[in-house]
């Protein structure tokens, strides 16, 4: 019998951390408000009570030192999980992420292992405005040495977070704030999803939609709408953005001959540009239309719900984008 237990995305994260802390004493967590308070989104709830203040550590509001704590502890043999409350705050810690965590083992001639997981919460939709809503994954994917993970559902969250903790390279696990309450089937036993393996969320034959995090779910809604018009969408959720499962994307495009890339991040310079480039380099002869990118306009994330709802792409934007692509045939 299949385990039909349902769990929220936030608790899937929590359960992955808990299970890895149970089996591996070198795993510890550190970050702002994660101890007694359990994290501002409850992601670390109950962990300090279970594992103690030495393993679930409340830190000062010092993002550079939080990541540095993780780098130093990882390079000397522990398996740290360090939390940056909001993804926007990675900017405060960029030296430790980009110049230290990502490069140490390379600069040391390969003579270092950094089993470090940096967790953070990205994405908009909460009227949290320009400094608490960003999607900065493209910036991280550009840095050799990092792995970047963005789960779109509770099942993937648990499996990917488990993989991040077990990974011997620095990873950035980006939770989406609007998905924290999303529930879905999550097995109780520990399992991992390999980093760098995408997922065919919905098989289809007419157009490939590459979409990750919350946009993957919006693409599903769009696909149901388009199915009424006889457009059969195949949705690829890469799940890990660095390394990217290019093979899965290319094999899908070779079948559907159309591709649309969707992300919540600003369109210009976003990961959609990289994915579109890979598609045209590797599947140019299969394309019946230019690859389209759907993303946010070139502005900071606005505060007012009246603005933000039009800023972040949604199923309607995706439907329109796909209709435009298909109309070009």
């Amino acid at each position, binding site marked *: 019998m299949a385990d039909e237990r349902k769990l929220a995305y936030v608790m899937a994260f929590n359960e992955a951390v808990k299970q890895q802390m149970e089996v591996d004493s070198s795993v*510890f967590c*550190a970050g702002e408000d994660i101890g007694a308070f359990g994290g501002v989104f409850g992601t670390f709830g109950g962990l300090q009570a279970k594992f103690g203040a*030495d393993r679930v*550590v409340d*830190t*000062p509001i*010092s*993002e*550079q*030192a*939080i*990541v*540095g*704590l*993780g*780098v*130093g*502890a*990882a*390079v*000397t*043999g*522990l398996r*740290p999980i360090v939390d940056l409350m909001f993804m926007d705050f990675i900017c405060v810690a960029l*030296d*430790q992420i980009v*110049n*230290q965590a990502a490069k*140490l*083992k*390379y*600069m*040391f*001639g*390969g*003579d*270092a*292992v*950094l089993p470090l997981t940096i967790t953070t919460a990205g994405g908009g939709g909460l009227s949290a405005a320009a400094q608490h809503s960003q999607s900065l994954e493209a910036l991280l994917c550009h840095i*050799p*040495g990092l*792995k970047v993970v963005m789960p779109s559902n509770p099942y993937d969250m648990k499996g990917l977070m488990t993989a991040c903790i077990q990974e*011997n*390279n620095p990873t950035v696990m980006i939770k989406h704030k609007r998905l924290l309450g999303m529930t879905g089937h999550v097995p109780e036993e520990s399992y991992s999803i390999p980093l760098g393996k995408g997922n065919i969320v919905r098989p289809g034959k007419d157009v490939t939609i590459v979409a990750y995090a919350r946009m993957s779910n919006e693409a599903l809604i769009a696909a149901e709408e388009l199915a009424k018009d006889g457009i059969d969408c195949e949705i690829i959720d890469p799940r890990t953005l*660095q*390394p*990217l499962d*290019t093979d899965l994307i290319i094999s899908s495009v070779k079948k559907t001959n159309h591709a649309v890339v969707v992300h919540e991040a600003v369109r210009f310079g976003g990961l959609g540009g990289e994915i579109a480039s890979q598609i045209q380099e590797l599947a140019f002869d299969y394309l019946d239309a230019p690859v389209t990118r759907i993303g946010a306009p070139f502005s900071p994330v606005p505060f007012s719900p009246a603005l933000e709802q039009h800023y972040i792409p949604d199923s309607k934007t995706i439907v329109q984008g796909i209709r435009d692509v298909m109309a070009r045939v």
Partner: protein
Amino acid sequence: MDLPVHVQLDLHRRMVRIRLFEEAAGRLAESNRLPGFLHLYVGEEAVAAGVCGALNDDDHITSTHRGHGHLVAKGGDFNRMMAELMGKATGYCKGKGGSMHISDTSLGMLGANGIVGAGSPIAVGAAFANRYRGRGQVAVAFFGDGSTNIGAFHEAANMACALHLPIVFACENNEYGEFTPRDKTMAITDIVDRAAGYGMPGVIVDGMDVIAVHEAAVEAVERARSGGGPSLIEAKTYRFYNHHGVQNLGLKYRSDDEVAMWKQRDPIFTLEDRMIENKAATRDQFDAIWAELRAGIEAAIAFADESPYPTPDQITVGVYTSMSGAS
């Protein structure tokens, strides 16, 4: 001088090794045989030697852009160091890091660092891990006076104290942040004044006196090892050469008199004179030590010269562990 003679000789040996390595690197750089930037430690030897002489082999240190001295003092191998400075495949970092990233994790040396101030948070992490494992190891963050003006230092110092970690902050105050004198960049004279702001003890030592540095380091390391938390040591020192290289593009930012005054306080010769005066050692003994170590540096240069360069297929090797990296 209460230190046993063998300890004094150990500190002397560490300093001479640093001096010889750095002088050799300087000569190679001047004859264009070293690629890239070179930040020499000459003049500051007493700090690395005095502190590392107080550490166990499995204690950790983080370093700075001026990092060769720290690695030598922690036991670094001349051959692999010189090969790395030349960008050779046999170097400590296989030619991927160079002078500014030289490291040996097996010696607990967690890397020179091209980013001013960035080593201190990493030392905090090492200190955290050391306490977590409970094996009694400590961590030392070496840093310059200039880096106490960057946020990373303050975050690291505060977090270390808030978490009461086994760490020593070892400041090499050489009075210049690159080319700018300290009094133009901070309103205090002594870096140690910052220690109180985080709730840790701090002490000023003569950074040209290896015995003084060592005694302060022993006390701070013992405090850390026994659960007494962080401390800060400010060693007043001076770099005999320039911020970068030996001639430093001919830039003039320090007076000849000032440089000459500090050179009269050379940490190695000062120690030798004292030990001879105290009949703890003889000139012949020191001459033999210099000759022995000088032979080692000549051998290292030959080793590095003869070593192969890394091949282009190595560019993407080591970006990820057990993975060749993104295309």
